C-alpha cells in the first residue's frame, strides 16, 4: 500500500518501517500508510489485502480501532454538515430562456442613476415590472420610470416653498400613504464631524429610508470571471398560508 504523493514527500526507505511478523503479516505501518488504510476502511474502499493488513496491525496495536472510530466519527460529522450546507442544491436548475442581458443592462443603468439607497447597497436588487426580463425586448416605458423615481417633483408648488425638512416630511407622509415608504430608520449614522470657524460643529450623517416595491422578478447583479456584469435570478418561494 503506497501512494505517489506519499512516496514523493517521505523518506523513500520509510516503507521498510512496515513491521512484519514471522508469517510475513504486516503488524505496524508508518504514519501516512496507517492513515490511508483507516481512510480506505471508512470509505468502503478497502480491499481484502487492506483488511488483512488492518487485522494484522490491530492484533498488535489495538489503538488503531479507536483511531478508526475517531476518524469515522469526524468524517460523519463533516459529512452531515456538508449535507446541511448543500441541502438546497437540488433546487438550483439552469436558468431558462435566452441569455441576452441587454434589457437588464438598461435597467441596471437606470437603477444606478436613480436607485439612491439601492445603488449604494452592496448587493443590488434589480426590480422589474411585469413580464420575465430575460426575454423582454422593450426598454422601460416612461410610466415605469416614474415608478422607479421617487416623487420629489420640483413642479409641486407646495414642495417648492417647503424647507428641506418639511419637504422630507411630506415625502415620508405621502410615501407611507401610498405604501412606497415604510419609514425611516431611527438611527442616523455619523460619517464625519468637524469644527467650524464660528465655534459650531458640522455633522455629516446618513439617514436611512426604507422603501417598498412589489416586483415580479428579482435579480442580483453578479460578475463573471472576466468582470462582466450579469443578472442572477433570486429564487423566491411563495408563502403558503396555513389553514388550521
Amino acid at each position: 500500500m503506497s501512494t505517489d504523493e506519499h512516496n514523493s514527500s517521505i523518506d523513500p526507505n520509510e516503507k521498510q518501517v512496515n513491521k512484519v511478523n514471522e508469517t510475513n503479516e504486516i503488524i505496524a505501518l508508518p504514519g501516512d500508510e496507517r492513515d490511508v488504510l483507516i481512510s480506505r476502511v471508512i470509505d468502503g474502499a478497502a480491499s481484502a489485502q487492506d483488511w488483512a493488513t488492518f487485522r494484522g496491525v490491530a492484533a498488535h496495536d489495538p489503538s488503531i480501532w479507536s483511531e478508526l472510530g475517531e476518524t469515522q466519527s469526524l468524517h460523519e460529522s463533516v459529512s452531515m454538515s456538508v449535507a446541511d450546507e448543500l441541502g438546497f442544491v437540488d433546487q438550483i436548475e439552469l436558468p431558462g430562456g435566452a441569455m441576452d442581458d441587454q434589457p437588464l443592462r438598461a435597467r441596471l443603468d437606470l437603477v444606478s442613476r436613480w436607485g439612491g439607497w439601492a445603488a449604494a447597497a452592496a448587493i443590488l436588487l434589480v426590480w422589474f415590472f411585469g413580464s420575465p426580463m430575460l426575454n423582454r425586448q422593450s426598454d422601460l416605458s416612461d410610466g415605469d420610470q416614474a415608478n422607479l423615481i421617487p416623487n420629489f417633483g420640483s413642479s409641486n408648488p407646495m414642495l417648492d416653498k417647503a424647507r428641506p425638512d418639511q419637504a422630507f416630511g411630506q415625502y415620508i407622509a405621502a410615501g407611507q400613504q401610498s405604501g412606497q415608504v415604510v419609514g425611516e430608520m431611527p438611527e442616523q449614522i455619523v460619517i464625519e464631524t468637524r469644527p467650524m470657524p464660528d465655534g459650531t460643529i458640522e455633522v455629516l450623517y446618513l439617514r436611512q429610508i426604507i422603501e417598498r416595491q412589489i416586483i415580479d422578478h428579482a435579480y442580483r447583479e453578479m460578475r463573471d470571471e472576466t468582470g462582466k456584469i450579469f443578472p442572477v435570478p433570486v429564487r423566491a418561494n411563495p408563502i403558503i398560508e396555513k389553514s388550521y
Partner: protein
Amino acid sequence: MHEQGISESIIESAIGGDRDALNTLWQQSRRWVAAILLAHKPRETDLEDLLQVVAMQVCRKISTVREPKAFKSWLRTIAINTAREEGRKTSRRKRSMLKFVGIEQMNPKSVSPVDVLSEDSDESKRIYQAAMSLPIGYREPVLLRCLRSMSYQHIGEVLELPETTIETRIARGRRMLKEILKQQDHQHDESSSLRAIGGVR
C-alpha cells in the same frame, strides 16, 4: 443524483446545444460543483448565489468546451473562479462599507475565526469549521468525499489528480483535522486553567 453515470455522449450533446442534455449534465454535476464552491468560497459568501452564478455560466459558455473529457475540469475552473471573484468583491465591498460608516473606529476589535469558534458550543459546527480551515489542497478532496457519490476515482477526475494522490490527501486531511481539533482542545484547556488560577487569586 449519481454523477458517475455521466456519459461522454451527454456531454457532447450538451456542448452541441442540446438543452435536455445540458439539464441532465447539470443535475448530475451540481452537487459536486457546490462542494467545490464550499471549499473555495469566502466564509461570508452565500453558497446558493454562487451556485446560481455557475449555473448561469454553464448555460452561457458550455459551447466553449472543446471536448467532453475536459468538461469536469472546465466546470471546476468556473466554480473556483466564481468563488474567488465573489470573495474579492465581498472584501472590496466590506472595506468600502467600513470606511464609509466609520465602523473601523467604532469597533476596532474585529471578530476572528477563533472568537467565533469559542462562542460556538455546537461540536459538529466546530468540527466543520476545523475542516474548512484545512489547506485547500486537502479541504477540497475531504469535502468532496463527504458526497456519497464521489469515489476516489471520481474525485481524481474532477481535481485532475491520480487516484492514489486523492486517497493520500483525504487521509492526511483527516489526520490534520484531528490535530487541529486536539490543538483547539489543548488551547481551551490551557485558557480554562489560567482563568481558574486567576479566579483563585
